């Protein structure tokens, strides 16, 4: 799958290259690699996500050097990080807000995929790997949030681990196994710490598979049609590299604004109160990125079914390549799907809002309607739409609308050198 027969000029590098062809591999994957010439800014979030994973791992490793995972010391050690450790406040705020930024980016990345049909043949495995990364991210963020051992940490841990108690027959033993005791306590904190350290590296591993699959089948593009010739592509460097970096810098400005100006905006004040197993705070809500799922859980008045709905709402994504029966990838050419897409976006944001409100009265009713619609979208609308919708005519090639039929470049772009 090499896209270049690059040879390093430097004799030392050339010596290494003959024994481990790593420079050629990097060159083929990130320099000469041909990308569709019509990619827009929604395609820059993969790079942003890779960057965020790096940020979380680096700040996390340094935080661990000052953090103590015991129920007596965890809270104090985080306060020590905030007050005594050089730049500790900065590292912790980057890590805590970094998790939010990570989810912001992943949600945009996922909705990009939904809009442009990125999950369709031949990218099903690529998409499923993405769903796996998303699930691992949720597990990681949840366990990380428990580590400061404040009131929200403790009660989030209690409520989420209790989801497993809904499992018939084995529920109780499973939850006690997860806790390592009869309730959330020190053993729980310690295993969450171990797993919070481990999972990001597992994510990194799945990211490698994700990118491997991506480079094997090639990137999709906003037109949703296949690359047909070299004229449809440009080389990764400089075109994608510069675009990705520009988007990354804009994203970092937003990130920095949170870290330096409103570092606690997304957090909950109750988490600055040490964990108290005898008292639940009056309003417990998860972090914003879990709110839509939380709303689904609470919308259903039955414990087991609520938990089943919560997990199904995530798992359903993995089946998307087979639920969407339309052969046309991009919503640009699917007039009806495009509208349903935006209804889904509003539904998800609406569920997020409802998840943050108390579970009573009108909120519960609306949450039920939106939950039903969420599943309706994936399980009924998508399969049926493929048969009823008349797609708009697709362009002949990616380059045609840009370069005209003659194929003479109208000013921009060089071709990707394929196998020079």
């Amino acid at each position, binding site marked *: 799958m090499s896209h270049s027969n690059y040879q390093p000029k430097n004799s030392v590098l050339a010596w290494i290259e003959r024994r481990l062809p790593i420079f050629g591999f990097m060159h083929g994957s990130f320099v000469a690699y041909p990308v569709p010439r019509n990619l827009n800014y929604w395609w820059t979030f993969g790079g942003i996500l890779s960057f965020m994973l790096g940020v979380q791992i680096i700040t996390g490793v340094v935080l661990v050097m000052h953090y103590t995972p015991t129920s007596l010391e965890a809270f104090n050690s985080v306060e020590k990080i905030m007050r005594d450790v050089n730049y500790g406040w900065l590292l912790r705020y980057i890590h805590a807000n970094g998790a939010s930024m990570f989810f912001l980016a992943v949600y945009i990345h996922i909705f990009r995929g939904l809009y442009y049909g990125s999950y369709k043949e031949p990218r099903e495995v690529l998409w499923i790997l993405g769903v796996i990364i998303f699930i691992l991210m949720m597990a990681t963020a949840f366990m990380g949030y428990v580590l400061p051992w404040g009131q929200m940490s403790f009660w989030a841990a209690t409520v989420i681990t209790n989801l497993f*108690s809904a499992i018939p027959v084995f529920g109780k033993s499973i939850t006690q196994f997860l806790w390592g*005791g009869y309730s959330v306590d020190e053993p729980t904190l310690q295993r969450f710490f171990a797993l919070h350290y481990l999972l990001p590296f597992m994510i990194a591993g799945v990211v490698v598979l994700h990118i491997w699959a991506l480079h094997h089948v090639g990137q999709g593009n906003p037109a949703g049609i296949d690359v047909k010739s070299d004229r449809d592509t440009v080389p990764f460097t400089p075109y994608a590299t510069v675009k990705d970096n520009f988007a990354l810098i804009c994203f970092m400005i937003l990130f920095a604004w949170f870290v330096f100006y409103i570092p606690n905006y997304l957090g909950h004040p109750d988490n600055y109160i040490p964990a108290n197993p005898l008292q639940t705070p009056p309003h417990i809500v998860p972090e914003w990125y879990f709110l839509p799922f939380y709303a689904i859980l609470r919308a259903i008045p039955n414990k087991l079914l609520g938990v089943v709905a919560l997990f199904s709402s995530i798992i359903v994504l993995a089946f998307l390549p087979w639920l969407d029966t339309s052969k046309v990838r991009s919503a640009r050419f699917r007039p009806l799907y495009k509208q349903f897409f935006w209804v889904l976006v509003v539904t998800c944001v609406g569920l997020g809002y409802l998840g943050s409100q108390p579970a009573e009265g009108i909120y519960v009713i609306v949450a039920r309607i939106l939950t039903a619609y969420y599943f309706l979208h994936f399980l009924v609308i998508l399969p049926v739409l493929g048969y009823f919708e008349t797609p708009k005519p697709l362009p002949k090639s990616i380059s045609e609308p840009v370069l005209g039929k003659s194929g003479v470049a109208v000013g921009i772009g060089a071709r990707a050198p394929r196998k020079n």
Partner: protein
Amino acid sequence: MSKTVTTEPTRRDFLYIATASVGAVGAAAVAWPIISSMNPDASVLAMSSTEVDLTPIAEGQIITVKWQGKPVFISHRTKKEIQEAENVKLSELPDPQPDSARVKKGKEEWLVVIGICTHLGCVPLGHEGEYGGWFCPCHGSVYDTSGRIRKGPAPLNLALPPYEFTSDKAIKIG
């Protein structure tokens, strides 16, 4: 070379299967202690019991004590609360249980329950909710003065810890 169609497993197939089986048994043997180590350990299992003196608890008061790391509510119920708990039709209850099965005979004024919502484990607030029992702030489950679930997503009544009266005014939980 002519095609050889062998339906019989060969000796090599046998060796492959035997090797894989031994490998699987080995992997399971290694996984066992690793997984088992995550269970509650001996110090957690050592059932501690908690003794509580009931004299300072006034009528109408609920106190919370800690047993095995969990909150336990001890409610000194008023006459009215006891009557409300006893007069409910069992058919109205999601998890039917008479009040008499939830208290010790002759000690109806003392209700001892584990203070963990049977939905997802929050600690309900006492003397709250429509039935004057408990209200869970997390997802809105409502319990009555007998700690029985009346409304909301929780499926079961508040659990009863094992306890006994060591004297007229003292109990031992556990």
